[in-house]
């Protein structure tokens, strides 16, 4: 017999939550180590990347490495960076000679503007379509929407982007093809630039969420309580809003969180194609410049967003689903 709500399950919730948080911190630490090790393994460093063939001038190469502190052992550099991190200091970009927090600042905001805008458009659209085609399942409408969404998802995002740019920028001239504005530009100036990226992101994300919502909606529609409600004569619309949607959304929470993590963690390819000044393009530049501390900080930040959102999704699922949070005594 399931226990009633009380201190027991609450404690259990807390324990579960704590477990997840500890796990998340551990994952972050692992990400930090792996990112550092892999970037360290790449051939070349900040100085060879910058000097190009001037690196033949050994004196200049050495001076550059000395200036940027690259001559110290890798472990020491990692230790210093990790130590600073613990005290909330992301360190200094080796190239830009500026605090990393400062370099990332507005770019993180820009990525969030794009990510949230895309989520606001894409996620409700996906959920709505999912419910719709579940209700109309196996009709021509279902087949059309499902296959269109799957097709849109299968196309690589850079292909979708190119096609949309061709139509809306080259032919119609409605939106700019690439973003040419200041990193710190007000959000109003960002808006015309994010319409095409949002369209591409929507194409990519709709199918995942929609398919999942469709499946769970079908399940809920077949459940006893929905049958009961129908037999009692509750209007269908009300059944959908009151009973089907909340229950069908439960399994979708995780995929929504994953999608959000993907959006907010910087959609590198999309940002790069549209020259969008977010953390995705910054990461690409940092990698090609071999700006290790910046690469590490960005990777960690992206991991943090991803893990954080998943953690929230986990806890939310726990909170919403009594079966998961109840002690099996």
């Amino acid at each position: 017999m399931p226990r009633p709500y009380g201190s027991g399950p609450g404690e259990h919730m807390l324990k579960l939550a704590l477990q997840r948080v500890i796990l998340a911190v551990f994952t972050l630490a692992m990400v930090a180590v792996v990112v550092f090790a892999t970037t360290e393994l790449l051939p070349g460093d900040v100085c060879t990347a910058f000097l190009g063939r001037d690196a033949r001038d050994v004196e200049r190469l050495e001076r550059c490495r000395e200036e940027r502190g690259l001559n110290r052992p890798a472990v020491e550099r990692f230790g210093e960076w990790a130590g600073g991190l613990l005290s909330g200091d992301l360190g200094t970009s080796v190239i830009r000679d500026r605090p990393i927090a400062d370099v990332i600042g507005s770019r993180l905001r820009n990525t969030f503007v794009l990510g949230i805008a895309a989520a606001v458009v894409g996620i409700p659209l996906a959920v709505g379509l999912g419910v719709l085609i579940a209700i109309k399942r196996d009709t021509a409408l279902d087949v059309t929407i499902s296959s269109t969404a799957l097709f849109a998802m299968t196309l690589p995002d850079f292909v979708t982007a190119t096609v949309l740019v061709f139509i809306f920028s080259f032919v119609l001239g409605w939106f700019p093809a690439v973003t040419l504005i200041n990193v710190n530009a007000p959000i109003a100036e960002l808006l015309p630039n994010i319409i095409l990226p949002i369209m591409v992101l929507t194409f990519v994300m709709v199918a995942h969420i929609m398919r999942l919502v469709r499946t769970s909606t079908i399940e809920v529609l077949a459940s006893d309580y929905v049958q009961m409600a129908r037999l009692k004569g509750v209007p269908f619309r009300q059944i959908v809003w009151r009973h089907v949607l909340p229950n069908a959304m439960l399994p979708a929470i995780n995929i929504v969180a994953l999608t959000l993590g993907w959006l907010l963690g910087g959609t590198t390819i999309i940002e790069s194609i549209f020259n969008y000044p977010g953390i995705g393009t910054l990461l690409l530049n940092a990698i090609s410049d071999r700006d290790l501390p910046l690469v590490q900080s960005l990777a960690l930040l992206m991991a943090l967003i991803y893990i954080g959102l998943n953690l929230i999704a986990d806890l939310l699922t726990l909170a919403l689903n009594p079966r998961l949070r109840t002690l099996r005594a």
Partner: protein
Amino acid sequence: MKTRTLPLLICLCLLLIVGVAHAQDERGTLRINHAMEFGGLESLDPISQYRFFDVNARLYNRLVRADAQGLPAPELATEWSPNDDATEWTFLLREGVLFHDGETLTAADVAYSFNRIIDPAVDTPVRAVLGIMNRVEAVDDTTVRFVLNAPHADFPLLLTDYRALVIAEGSADRIEQTGNGTGPFRLETLDLEGTTRLVAFDEYWEGVPQHGVVEIFPIPDATATLQAFLAGQIDIYSATVAEVPLFNQDQVYVQYLFSGGWEGMVMRTDTPPFDDVRVRRALRVVADRQAMLDLALGPNGGTIACDSPVWPGDPYFSQMNCPQDIELARQLLAEAGYADGITVDLYLSDLSQTWTTLAEVYQQQAAQAGITVNLNMTSSDGYWSDVWMIEPFTFTSWGQRPADQILNEGWRSGADWNETYWNRSDFDSLLDRARSALDFAQRKELYADAQEMLWMEGGALIPYFTNTVRAVNNAVTLPEIDYDMVPWWEVTVNR
């Protein structure tokens, strides 16, 4: 209808915002991009290794520029002359030239700018070109004397370097912020991660600039750059022949410019089997250069080269013939003891789009003479530091340089970038003699000998010079000259 009005509305709002923010100059705005080559460290200091090329070319002037024939022509200097042995050069300055801050250009400014280049406390790559200067003195307000460490009959040509720009006396520690020069445009906003804006300097000595504003945007990604150009967001695009069909003839025009840039393969002449001149020659005469050019770059892609880095537009260019000769290659290899063929490893990376094509074409051509070429693809990161000038047979590429400069930078014994490890005192002596010969015809002859020597014995296979392909928005009139020689003040923008 609704879907159509929304974007229009948004665009309108944007236009309003932009329009209010910057009052437009009626002469028009030129919009260009920069690739963030230095990741945001781009510097307005002309001699910094991170020089902000596109901006600096508009802010400052040289003393001397190269004309269409590759000969020195007046810019800030109006005339110049050497002493009897070309160890001292005296330059007369143009009068009434103003800096953006209103000060008048004097000889002291010029002396200051050039003494910085040889100041050991300043770290600058320009020293590789102008290190021959011993000291620079202001004789009077409009006369500057350059005292050299060694004779150099073509010293004015060295001053055409795109980084040999003049700043005001004592301004070195502020120049990165002010960009105070004598050029046709002055700095309004410097924003390396956003829009850098330059505005016309109406007191410019050559004439009033024909366009009012220059906007420079950072676009690190190559595809995004092309996209921006195709959508009309930037006006000038440095293209490849393969991209030309993408351009809409109604909106843009394409220019093909001869250039001295080249790419090729270099053998280390100090390493077997390339230390044998017969092997080197065999490996070079198997090349069918026209086929290489056609396959790697396409029509209008470049001009044939005969393993000399001196390009056809250079006054010291020497015309040679270098047809493919399989028989000669076989014979040379047999003499060198490789009658049954030879196997060599060629190193490349994907740093350049054409290296791979060129390597495969060469592999096929060389096979005809019994030469097996193994292609070793290496990482593009660290290629210049870990592969080039280390492995015995590697790919390379160079930008355009005047004869004296490229031969000294790339072939003088012991030079930093002597990639073929060419160590020949007779060759060095040719270069030295050319530098001290005050007679042009005599210099030309000496440089011709040097080029001939490279074709007969050298270690570099230089199949062609690459044309510059440039696409320009119809609204902009850009003269058909090399990018770093364009008189930017004359360019008009009608939009």
